[in-house]
C-alpha cells in the first residue's frame, strides 16, 4: 500500500466532512436569521436590536409584550417543534430505509394528535396535562403499530402499511371529536388537523423544551449506530452494533419527539417527511443525516410560519403552508430521486 492512496482516501473524506460542516453552519445561520426576523416582523415591526434586548431580558416599552409574550414563545415553539419533527422524520426514514416512511405518514403523530384532542375536547384539559396524555398515547400507538407488524421480525413495508391504516383510523377519530366539540373554533381545529402555531404561548414552551432537548441529545449521540443500521441489520450486527437495543433507543426517542411536538403544535404536515430528503440533497448523503435534517425542519417551520402569517391577506396556520409547499416538493423528490425504487 502506498502513502499516496492513504492521502487520497483522507483527502476525499475531509472534503466530504467539510461539505457537511458547511451545510450545518449555513443552516444554523439561516435559522438564526429566521428566528430574529420572526421576532421583529409583525403588526408592529421592531428593529432587531430591540428584539434581541427583549430576548436578553431587558424591558423595552411595547416590544417587551409583543416580542416577549407573543412572538418569542411562538418562534421558540416553532423552532423546537420543527427540530423535533425533522429529527424524528430523518430517524424513521433512515431506520426503515424508506423516504416515505416518516412518522406523520405512518400514523405515529396521529396517536398523539388524537389523544391531545381527546384530552382537550372531552376531558377539558389544557397545558401540561395534555402533554402527559399525548406523549404516552403516541408511544402506545407506536407500540400497537409495532406489535401488529411483528411477525418473524419487523418488516419495513408491513410497518408502513399498518401505520397508514392506524393513522387513517385515528384521523377519523380526530375529525369526529372536533365535529362534536362544543365550542368549535377554526383555529383550534386547524391546529389538530394540519398543525398550527396559533396557540403557542409560554406555558407550552417549557414542557416542550424539557422533552425535546434531552431526547434530541440522545438521538444525535446515537447517530453512529444509525449509520450502521443503514447498511441493513445483518451488516450492522456484523459491524458490532447491538441492533435490537440501538433500534429501540432510536425509535423511542423519535416517537417521543414526534409526540411532544404534535401535542404542542399539532401534526405540522410534511415537516417530518421533507426535512430528511432536503438535508440529504444539501449534504450529498455524507455522515449522519440527523443534525442537518433537524436544522432543516426548524428552518422549514419558521419559514412557513412567516409565509402563513404575512404573505397573504388571510393568516394561514403553518401546517397549511407546509402542506401546500409539500405537494410540489413531494412530486419533485419522487420524480428526481433516482433511487426511489430502491428505497421502496
Amino acid at each position, binding site marked *: 500500500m502506498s502513502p499516496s492512496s492513504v492521502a487520497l482516501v483522507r483527502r476525499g473524506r475531509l472534503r466530504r466532512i467539510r461539505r457537511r460542516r458547511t451545510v450545518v453552519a449555513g443552516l444554523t445561520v439561516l435559522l438564526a436569521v429566521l428566528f430574529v426576523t420572526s421576532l421583529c416582523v409583525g403588526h408592529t415591526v421592531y428593529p432587531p436590536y430591540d428584539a434581541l434586548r427583549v430576548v436578553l431580558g431587558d424591558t423595552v416599552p411595547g416590544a417587551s409584550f409583543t416580542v416577549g409574550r407573543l412572538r418569542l414563545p411562538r418562534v421558540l415553539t416553532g423552532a423546537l417543534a420543527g427540530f423535533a419533527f425533522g429529527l424524528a422524520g430523518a430517524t424513521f426514514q433512515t431506520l426503515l430505509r424508506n423516504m416515505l416512511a416518516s412518522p406523520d405518514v405512518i400514523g405515529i403523530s396521529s396517536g398523539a394528535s388524537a389523544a391531545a384532542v381527546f384530552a382537550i375536547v372531552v376531558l377539558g384539559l389544557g397545558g401540561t396535562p395534555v402533554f402527559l396524555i399525548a406523549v404516552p398515547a403516541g408511544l402506545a400507538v407506536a407500540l400497537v403499530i409495532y406489535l401488529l407488524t411483528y411477525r418473524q421480525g419487523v418488516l419495513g413495508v408491513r410497518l408502513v402499511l399498518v401505520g397508514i391504516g392506524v393513522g387513517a*383510523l385515528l384521523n377519523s377519530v380526530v375529525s*369526529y371529536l372536533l365535529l362534536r366539540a362544543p365550542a368549535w373554533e377554526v383555529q383550534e381545529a386547524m391546529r389538530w388537523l394540519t398543525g398550527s402555531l396559533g396557540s403557542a404561548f409560554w406555558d407550552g414552551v417549557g414542557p416542550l423544551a424539557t422533552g425535546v432537548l434531552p431526547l434530541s441529545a440522545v438521538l444525535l449521540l446515537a447517530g453512529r449506530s444509525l449509520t450502521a443500521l443503514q447498511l441493513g441489520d445483518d451488516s450492522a450486527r456484523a459491524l458490532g452494533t447491538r441492533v435490537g437495543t440501538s433500534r429501540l433507543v432510536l425509535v423511542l426517542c423519535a416517537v417521543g419527539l414526534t409526540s411532544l411536538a404534535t401535542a404542542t403544535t399539532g401534526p405540522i404536515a410534511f415537516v417530518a417527511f421533507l426535512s430528511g430528503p432536503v438535508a440529504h440533497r444539501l449534504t450529498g448523503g455524507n455522515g449522519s443525516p440527523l443534525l442537518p435534517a433537524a436544522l432543516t425542519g426548524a428552518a422549514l417551520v419558521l419559514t412557513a410560519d412567516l409565509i402563513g402569517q404575512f404573505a397573504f391577506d388571510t393568516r394561514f396556520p403553518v401546517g397549511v403552508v407546509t402542506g401546500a409547499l409539500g405537494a410540489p416538493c413531494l412530486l419533485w423528490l419522487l420524480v428526481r430521486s433516482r433511487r426511489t425504487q430502491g428505497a421502496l
Partner: protein
Amino acid sequence: MSTRPLVWLPACVLLVAVAAALSVMLGARTVSPGDALAALVHGEDGSLARAAVRQRVPRTGLALLVGAALGTAGAVMQGLTRNPLADPGILGVNAGAALAVVCGIAYLGISTPGQYVWLAVAGAGAAAALVYVIGSRGRGGATPVKLALVGTMVTAALSSLVSAVLLPRLDVVNTFRFWQIGGVGGASADGILQVLPLLAAGFVLSLASARGLNALALGDDLAAGLGERVARTRLSAAAGAVLLCGAATAAAGPIGFVGLVVPHTVRLLTGPDNRWVLPLSALTGAALVTLADVTGRLVARPGDMEVGIVTAVIGAPVFIAVARQQKVREL
C-alpha cells in the same frame, strides 16, 4: 366453485333489503315494521312516525347508491392496479374530489350539487391519475406499498390545499367540514337524481370491464397474449371507477374504506372471478354503507355519527389485516 356465487347472490340481495328496512325504521325515533310499511305505501298521515320514515327514505337511497358505487369502484381499482390495498380513500381520489369541489365553491361560485358533481369527478380522476403515475415509477411498477404511500402523501397535500382555499372563507367552512367527513344525512331526492346518471354510467362501464379485468389479473403481457386489448380495458375500467368515486364523493363526501373492505369480503365468498365480484361488491357495499349509517344513528342517538367515521372504524382494521397477510414478496 362455480355454484357458490349463485348462493351468495340472493344472500346479498337479502342483506341489502334488510339493511334498507333497518335504515327506514331505526334512528332517533324507532318505528315498527308495520308503521314503516304503511308510511311507505300510504304516505304521511301527520304522525311523527310516518314523517320520520318518509324523511329517512332519501337518506337510505343515497346510502345504498353510494355504497354500491364505492364497493364496485374499489373492486375495479383493485383489479386494475392488481393491488389488494387499492381504495378510493387510500389512493387520494376522495381528496382530489374534495379539492375540486371546494375550488368550485370558492372561485367559480358553484352552488348546486348538479354542478359540482362534474368537478368532483374531474378532481377524482386527476388525483387518481397523479397517484398512479407517481406510484408506478421505478422498479416493480405500482406496488401496493408505493401506491398506498403516494396516495397518503397526495391526500395530505390536497387536504392542506383544501384548508388553504377554505380558511379565508369562514362561511364555507361550516358547511364543508361536515361534507369532509362523509355523511348521507343531508340527502334529498333532487340531489340523488343529479348524481344518478353519472353513477349509472359508472356502473355500466365497470361491469362491462369485468371480463377484461379477469384477463388483466394475469399481468399485462399475458392479457395481451390472450387477445385482450389491454389499454382499452384499462381506460374504460378506470373511467368507470373514477365516475363512481367522483359521483359518490360529490353526493356524500369522502367515505373511506368501503372500497377496500367490500371486495375483499366478496372475494372470500366467491373467489376471484370479477364477473361475480363486481356485482356482489355493489350489493355488499350498499348494505355496508347503509348499515354503517344506521349504526352511526344508533350510537350517537339522538344525533348521528357520520358514515365516514363508522366505515373508518370498521375498515381500518381490515386494511391492517390485509397488509399483515401480504407476502413479503408482493410488497
